[in-house]
C-alpha cells in the first residue's frame, strides 16, 4: 500500500467516522456539515477530471452544479404542486424520486458541458477561462430572470426527495446516500484516470503535438473529459439542492465556480482523492474560522496562498509526496 492509498483510506474513514460519532452523540448539525463536505467533494472530483487531468481551468463549473440543482428543483416542484412539467405533445410529470432525478441532472449538465466544451475548447489558456466564465454567467442571469421557477428568490422544496428503503429526511441516512455516491464517483474517476483515456488526457495536458503523433485527438479527449466532469458536478448540484431543500441562482454564481476550484487546489490538483481532502478542509475552516470572524475568507485566502506558493500538490502533495505517477 502506497502512502497515498493509505491517506485516501484515512480520509474516507474520517468522513465516515465523524457523522457516525455525531449520530451517536445526537449532533445532527455535524452530520449535515459532513454531508455538505461530501457533496462539495463530489463537485470537486468532477472538476478535477477537467482541471487536474486535462489542465482545463474552467471557471464555469457552477453552471453545471446549478443545472443539476435546478433539474432536481424543477422536477420536485412539479411533483409537489401536482402540475405536469409539460402536457404537450405528451405529458411529463414531476417526480420526487432521486433515482429519476439523478439521471436527469447528469444528462442535463453533461449535455450542457458538451455544448459549452465544444465551443470553449476551441480556445485555450486565459481565453478558455474567460469563455467558461461567460457561459457560467449566462446561465446565472438566466436563472435570475426565470420567474416561473422563483427567479432571484429561488425555489423551495418542502420535503427531501425519496430513495428506496431509506428515510432521506433523517440526516444520517441522507449522509449515507451522499457518501455512497461519492464512493461510486471516486471509483469511476479512479478507473477512468488509469484507463488509456485518462492517461492520454494527462499526456495531452503535457504535450498535444506529441500525443497527436501517436494517433490521439486531444480535442476529443478534452471534450469527453469536460462533459463527464460537468455531469459529475451536476449530480453534486442535485444532491446539494436536496440537502438544502432549496435551489437558487447563487448555486450558479462565479463564486461557486471559484469555491469548487479551491477544493481542488487545496486538496491536490490531479489527485483523485485531492478534492475530497480540499472540500473537507474547506468546510472545517468555514466552520471553525467562520465562528471566530465573519471575515474568515481572509484567512482562507492566506492558506490558499500558502498552498499555491509552497505546496503545489495541495494537502495530498504535502503528505504523500510530489510523486503521483506511482499511484
Amino acid at each position, binding site marked *: 500500500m502506497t502512502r497515498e492509498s493509505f491517506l485516501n483510506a484515512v480520509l474516507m474513514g474520517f468522513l465516515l467516522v465523524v457523522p457516525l460519532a455525531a449520530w451517536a452523540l445526537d449532533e445532527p448539525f455535524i452530520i449535515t456539515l459532513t454531508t455538505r463536505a461530501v457533496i462539495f467533494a463530489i463537485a470537486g472530483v468532477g472538476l478535477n477530471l477537467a482541471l487536474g487531468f486535462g489542465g482545463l481551468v474552467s471557471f464555469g463549473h457552477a453552471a453545471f452544479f446549478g443545472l443539476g440543482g435546478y433539474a432536481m428543483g424543477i422536477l420536485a416542484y412539479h411533483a409537489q404542486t401536482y402540475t405536469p412539467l409539460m402536457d404537450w405533445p405528451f405529458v411529463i410529470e414531476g417526480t420526487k424520486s432521486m433515482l429519476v432525478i439523478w439521471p436527469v441532472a447528469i444528462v442535463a449538465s453533461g449535455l450542457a458541458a458538451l455544448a459549452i466544451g465544444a465551443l470553449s475548447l476551441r480556445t485555450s489558456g486565459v481565453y478558455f477561462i474567460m469563455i467558461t466564465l461567460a457561459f457560467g454567467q449566462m446561465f446565472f442571469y438566466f436563472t435570475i430572470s426565470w420567474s416561473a421557477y422563483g427567479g432571484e428568490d429561488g425555489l423551495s422544496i418542502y420535503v427531501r426527495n425519496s430513495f428506496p428503503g431509506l428515510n432521506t429526511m433523517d440526516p444520517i441516512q441522507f449522509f449515507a446516500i451522499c457518501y455512497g455516491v461519492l464512493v461510486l464517483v471516486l471509483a469511476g474517476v479512479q478507473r477512468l484516470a488509469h484507463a*488509456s483515456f485518462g*492517461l*492520454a488526457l*494527462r*499526456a495531452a495536458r*503535457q*504535450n498535444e*503535438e*506529441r*500525443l*497527436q*503523433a*501517436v*494517433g*490521439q*485527438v486531444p480535442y476529443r479527449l478534452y471534450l469527453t473529459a469536460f462533459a463527464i466532469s460537468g455531469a459529475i458536478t451536476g449530480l453534486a448540484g442535485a444532491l446539494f439542492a436536496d440537502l438544502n431543500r432549496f435551489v437558487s441562482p447563487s448555486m450558479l454564481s462565479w463564486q461557486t465556480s471559484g469555491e469548487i476550484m479551491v477544493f481542488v487546489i487545496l486538496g491536490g490538483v490531479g489527485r483523485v482523492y485531492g478534492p475530497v481532502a480540499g472540500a473537507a478542509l474547506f468546510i472545517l475552516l468555514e466552520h471553525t474560522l467562520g465562528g471566530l470572524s465573519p471575515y474568515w475568507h481572509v484567512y482562507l485566502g492566506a492558506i490558499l496562498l500558502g498552498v499555491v506558493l509552497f505546496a503545489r500538490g495541495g494537502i495530498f502533495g504535502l503528505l504523500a509526496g510530489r*510523486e*503521483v*505517477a*506511482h499511484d
Partner: protein
Amino acid sequence: MSLLSLSQVSAFYGPSQALFDVNFSVAEGEVVALMGRNGMGKSTTIKVICRMLQHRGGTVMFAGNDVARLPSHKVARLGVGLVPEGRRCFADLTVYENLIAAARKGAWDFTAVAELFPRLLERRGQAAGTLSGGEQQMLAIGRALMTNPTLLLLDEATEGLAPVVRQEIWQAISKLKAQSGLAIVVVDKSLQELRGVADRAVILEKGTSVWNGAFSELSAEVTDRYLGI
C-alpha cells in the same frame, strides 16, 4: 509497391524554404537510412511525413493515401510511428502509462515491448521524467511501437547516448528488422551501425535528396562528399 513515397517535396518554415526537391520511397519491411550533415533537412522530412509540418509542393503518399489531406493523428492511425528527436516522453506519466496512453490494437503490447526492452519492465512504475536518456529513448521507441505501426520513423534515436546504450538501441533496431518486418526510416549519423541494419540510404544536401541507393553501394567518395565534416 512502395509503402511510403515522397515525390518532389518542398517545405517551408515561414518564408524560409527548408526542403526543395526531396524524392525517395520506402518499401514494406525495408530499412532506409536518411542521412546528411546537420541542417540538411532530415528532421524536416520526418515532420513532413508525419504531417507535423505541411509541405507546399510535391506529394507524400503513405499506404496509398495522400498525406497532405490528413491531420497528423490520422497519419499516425494509418500506421506511421514516430520516435521524435530528443526522445520527448510524457515526463509525468510512468513508463507503463506512457505506453498504454499510446496503445492501439495489434501485435505490439506491453509484454512485447518489455521483451524488446527488458529495462522498461524493471522501470515500469517509474515516472518517465526520472529515467536516464537511454531508458527514455527505449520508452520513446516502445511508445511508437505500441501504436502498432507499419512504418517506424526514428529521428536521431541514438544521439547523445552512452556507447553501451547506443549499442542496445541498435541491437533492438536489428531485432525489429529481423523479427517484425516493419519498414523503418532511420535518421542517424553512425555509418558503421547503419551499415548493419539499413538496406538503402538517402542522402540530403541543402534540403534536396542528392543520393539514393543500396547502402552497400555507398562509396567513400559519396560519404566524404556529403557526410564528411
